[in-house]
């Protein structure tokens, strides 16, 4: 399923997003009709720009850690020594996906306290699954002729992994990372129910004070970020896939 927008539209989204984050006052007139009289139309309990940066930072740290761990695990279970873990790891991934993120988040609070940590844990665990699954697909569906040729050329196991298998699997792995990032961007907002500094703070403030403008701006910033990052990663995948198949 491709989600593509014309480049011009994409650029417009980016420009509007940046303008909104840096000069939210410009948009005040558009949002004022949504709020009750005398209520603020633009989030006023912190800088939207900084919340966005913190939101992206949380997602980036969690996704980076999830990518490293998931790809390492996928490499281990596709080697000869770890082959007996392959069926089990597939089952665990299937089971893991049934755990609701809210439950993971709430259960991490007593262990790690309020704030960013439980959010990072929940995003990390949730992000593992799509990346692992895709890395596994990428590493197990390599063209056998290429792997054979590498073996024939006298490459060792680790040479084959680094020079042949990982580069070939990279576009599929990136697809997993993309799925994971889009899920994490939205899920991170739930982190604000346990006091993490994310854009969820804006939405929750809106829910609590019955301020639709807050809910809308928080939600739309996250959605715009998700669409832009999704498209950027998809472009990267296509570039890489094109280069590999030459």
């Amino acid at each position, binding site marked *: 399923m491709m*989600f593509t927008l014309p480049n011009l539209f994409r650029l417009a989204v980016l420009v509007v997003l940046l303008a909104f984050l840096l000069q939210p006052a410009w948009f005040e007139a558009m949002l004022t009709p949504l709020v009750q009289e005398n209520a603020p139309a633009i989030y006023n309990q912190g800088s939207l720009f900084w919340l966005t940066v913190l939101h992206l930072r949380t997602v980036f740290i969690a996704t980076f850690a999830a990518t490293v761990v998931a790809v390492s695990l996928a490499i281990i279970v596709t080697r000869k020594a770890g082959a007996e873990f392959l*069926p089990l790891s597939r089952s665990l991934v299937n089971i893991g996906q049934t755990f609701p993120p809210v439950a993971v988040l709430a259960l991490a609070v007593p262990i790690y306290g309020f704030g960013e940590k439980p959010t990072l844990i929940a995003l990390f665990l949730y992000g593992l699954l799509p990346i692992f699954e895709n890395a596994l697909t990428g590493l197990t569906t390599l063209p056998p002729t290429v792997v054979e040729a590498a073996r024939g050329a006298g490459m060792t196991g680790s040479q084959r992994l680094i020079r042949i298998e990982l580069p070939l699997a990279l576009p599929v792995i990136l697809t997993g990372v993309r799925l994971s990032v*889009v899920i994490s961007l939205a899920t991170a907002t739930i982190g604000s129910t346990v006091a993490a500094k994310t854009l969820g703070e804006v*939405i929750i403030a809106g829910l609590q004070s019955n301020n639709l403008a807050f809910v809308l701006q928080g939600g739309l910033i996250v959605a715009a970020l998700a669409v832009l990052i999704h498209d950027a990663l998809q472009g990267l995948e296509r570039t890489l896939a094109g280069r590999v198949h030459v």
Partner: protein
Amino acid sequence: MAIGIIQEKERLAFRFDKLGVIISILALYGALLAPFATYRANRIIQGEARGIMEALPPHLGYGLLFLVVAGAAVALLRTPALFRMAMALAALAALAGLIGIAADHLTPPENSYARVSPASGFWVLVFAFSLLLTDALTRLHPGPGLRLLVLAGVLVLAGSMLVAGRWDGLSIMKEYANRADLFWAEAGRHVTLALGSLAAATVVGLPLGILCHRVERLRAGVLNVLNAIQTIPSIALFGILIAPLGWIAANIPGASAVGIRGIGAAPAFVALFLYSLLPVVANTVVGLAGVPRAANDAARGIGMTDRQRLVTIEFPLAFPVILTGIRIVLVQNIGLATIAALIGGGGFGVFVFQGVGQTAMDLVLLGAIPTVVLAFTAAIVLDALIEMTVPNSSQGNAA
């Protein structure tokens, strides 16, 4: 020399199960080093850790230690999968029974303030033996019917423990006892939200998917819009819907009479419905596109109308893929319905967020455990159904 080492390695690998090494380390750590239960003199106070021997009467304590060591040995050695499964089930059943006994043992008589909850050692043991069970089940690769039977057995067993009051001494059950009526009301709301929105999404999504399959120009547009909806965070979508639904309730006669209101279950229902549409529509399109051309041509050849072809050929062939979409939606909705509590929509999320607010872990568990059990049950049941509808499939999801 080198050959000797390889042979030595192979012999070791033959004797020890690699996963078994991990399982037995986890199990021994959980049993010997980590606390089995936490004791608190009242609900809010900091807990004190209790090991297995402190938490249980001596004969049961030694019994559990023996069982854990035996389980670790079974995991470590290369034993038949059926035997491993039996061992894992026995250990899990023993843990389930003993944590209830530990609660009664640790609570002083006539003390209604004291709270006992499972501690990290208990959870590590449960995790270790669940891992053993999952591994054994993956290796046995039971058919869908058998999987449903195992699931039913486990649920009946846990249910009878609950009904018999075996866990009543545990803190989570005391939280439950304090709000039993509310619990079932929220459970009803949770299930209604998850299943109702799924039903609505199926009713709308199937025809929409068929339409997208037939009319190519519509396809990209519809799927792009549904995709875009998925990028809106759930708490925001729930919140955004408050306004239009509030307006409908205030301005359309009869709307508020059927339960449409700005806050509460209505926006949660609509949000879950919107999230559900993409998997249903997309899988319907993919399923219909995967119908072999030959099947369609043959149907046309014998003079079937479009509608006959859809009902008797295309739909049955696409059904497993559509069902996969429904599985995704159901598991996702059961999880997302917890968020409904944030906008007054009820569901198990009420306990989760109350528990987070009061830092009462047991209250969080009272909301989280039923949610996970529901999602897990739904996943197993639908996976089995999907496998049953695919003819001659040898490959399925063991989870």
